[in-house]
């Protein structure tokens, strides 16, 4: 069953990767899907449970209306059709982390179907078709005890916390994506941009590290023109980069097997962060019989058309549309937009520009100064004590000559150090440019007197010699002089 890995670049010359993504997103509702227990992350184990989410005998589910609204909103943002009528179904299987031994999910009647997400993959738009978006409930969390690494195998027993059981989940399932050699990048870009969209919709905090977004990646290979091959399902891939690596590894692994004539087993696989490899999990060949049937304890949903339209009208601008708009309005390149997004300053820069700052200057200051400081401190730029108002004011002071670039950096440092707003820092630190003509002239004459040889060179037409004189004047004024003004004064006096 094992074979040599085939180098990725080589694999994709002979084989076409086809990928599919199933993304589970925990909604950011206050309460669980079917009961009033809170959903706060990190609470003491089993303190957020009740008869319903513990599956105690006699308890019944009641659907969280906000969870349905959020799901419809996601469906609308993904250009899906919203079902006029749909139901929940029970997915029956036994597992200790699932209190009722069935999961309330949706089966053949998902609430949202047939949508798409246009994904920007290095400047090229790839349309990823969405098959369905449906609602379901999360399971509890198990701690495996006694095994070597906290893994399930070798454990003596397990400890279960049901705080997470019943938290609303939305599952977003793509159709197969014929992504070509770029499949790993497409997979990563899809998940990143889906997460960005969900954040924009404010329906989930989308924290991969806390498991509020979890991704299963399906990968198969085929010869060009052939039908789809057998796919594997790599479970719980928990970072964007891992999505890319998991696809890349599966392509290499499957190509190796196929080239030696071995059939691909339909199975779930686990991704290992440390090695970037996958290993087999439960085989899917003896397909689990989930015995789906309509959930009799919940009534059908006929989501009101007027509420759908209200939600549609409330949809915020999607990240892709916004990027296009900003590109056109402010002249930023795709790369710059991506950098600002990654640095977490895009919204801040936009606000700064809206306060009147020039787009290039605002981008540069946030990206090069603030984001750098945030990075050094290991925090988000948005959590630093500097606001778009501060940055706009700094840039305005530079533009009107009150501050030089160097002085503006000092002013920013003061603001970051919590010394107050820009004007307060400039006043307290005495940072304003020496704009008093008389004072500047005095400094110029002093420097000419102190360096007669250099001054003579300038008088003789050697304009290169003006530099050292400017430097001397700047030094004499403690850097508070406007260098351009000093130059013009020197030239005026000496020629």
């Amino acid at each position, binding site marked *: 069953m094992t074979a040599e890995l085939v180098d990725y670049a080589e694999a994709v010359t002979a084989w076409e990767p086809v990928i599919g993504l199933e993304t589970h997103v925990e909604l950011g*509702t*206050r*309460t669980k899907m079917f*009961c*009033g*227990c*809170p959903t706060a992350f990190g609470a*003491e*184990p*089993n*303190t*957020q*449970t*009740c*008869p319903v989410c*513990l599956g105690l005998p006699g308890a019944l589910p*009641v*659907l*969280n*209306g*906000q*969870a*349905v609204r959020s799901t419809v909103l996601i469906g609308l943002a993904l250009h899906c059709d919203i079902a006029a*009528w749909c*139901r929940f179904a029970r997915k029956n*299987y*036994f*597992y*200790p*982390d*699932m209190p009722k031994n069935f999961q309330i999910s949706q089966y053949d009647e998902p609430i949202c179907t047939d949508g798409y997400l246009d994904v920007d993959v290095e400047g090229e738009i790839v349309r990823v078709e969405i098959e369905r978006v449906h609602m379901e409930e999360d*399971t509890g969390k*198990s*701690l*495996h005890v*006694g095994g070597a690494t906290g893994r*399930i195998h070798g*454990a*003596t*027993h*397990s*400890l*279960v*916390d*049901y705080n997470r059981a019943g938290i609303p989940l939305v599952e977003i399932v793509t159709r197969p994506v014929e992504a070509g050699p770029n499949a790993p990048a497409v997979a990563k870009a899809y998940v990143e941009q889906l997460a960005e969209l969900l954040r924009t919709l404010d329906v989930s905090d989308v924290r991969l590290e806390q498991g509020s977004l979890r991704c299963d990646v399906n990968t198969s290979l085929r010869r060009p023109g052939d039908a789809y091959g057998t796919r594997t399902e790599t479970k719980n891939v928990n970072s964007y980069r891992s999505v890319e690596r998991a696809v890349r590894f599966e392509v290499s692994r499957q190509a190796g097997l196929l080239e030696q004539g071995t059939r691909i087993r339909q199975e*779930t696989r686990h991704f290992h962060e440390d090695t970037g490899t996958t290993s087999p*999990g*439960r085989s899917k060949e003896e397909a*689990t*019989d989930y*015995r789906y049937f*309509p959930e*009799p304890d*919940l*009534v*059908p*949903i*006929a*989501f*009101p058309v007027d509420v759908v339209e209200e939600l549609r009208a409330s949809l915020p601008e999607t990240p892709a549309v916004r990027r296009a708009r900003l590109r056109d309005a402010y002249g930023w390149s795709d790369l710059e937009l991506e950098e600002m997004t990654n640095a977490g300053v895009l919204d801040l820069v936009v606000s700064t520009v809206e306060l009147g700052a020039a787009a290039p200057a605002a981008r540069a200051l946030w990206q090069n100064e603030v984001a750098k400081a945030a990075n050094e401190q290991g925090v988000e730029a948005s959590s630093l004590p500097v606001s778009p108002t501060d940055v706009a004011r700094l840039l305005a002071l530079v533009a009107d000559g009150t501050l030089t670039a160097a002085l503006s950096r000092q002013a920013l440092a003061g603001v970051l150090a919590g010394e107050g707003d820009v004007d307060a820092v400039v006043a307290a630190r005495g940072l304003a440019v020496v704009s008093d003509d008389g004072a500047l002239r005095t400094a110029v004459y002093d420097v000419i007197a102190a360096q007669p040889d250099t001054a003579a060179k300038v008088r003789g037409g050697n304009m290169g010699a003006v530099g050292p004189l400017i430097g001397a004047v700047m030094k004499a004024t403690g850097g508070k002089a406007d260098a351009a003004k000093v130059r013009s004064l020197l030239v005026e006096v000496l020629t």
Partner: protein
Amino acid sequence: MPEPITRDEVAHLARLARLECTDAELDTFAGQLEVILGSVARVAEVVADDIPPTSHSVPLTNVFREDVVRPSLDRDEVLAAAPAAEDGRFEVPRMLDEAP
């Protein structure tokens, strides 16, 4: 009319339903299931394709709950009723495989 139900088939169902059964029980159930299914096969006599199924006998839709927190149970009371507990968690026997 369905094919006769074999002991193996009942054993498969029992596994799916997490019911350990003796061979004698499997044989008894196989026989009884066959009789019951023989009788229920009559339902097919009357149902035409155009008849919609009824999953709920009350004509309700859109029963939603406000997203408002309600008190959870006292953990000690819940864990006291559990077969075993440790560290505020339910203790369960080791799991031999991940969830399907």
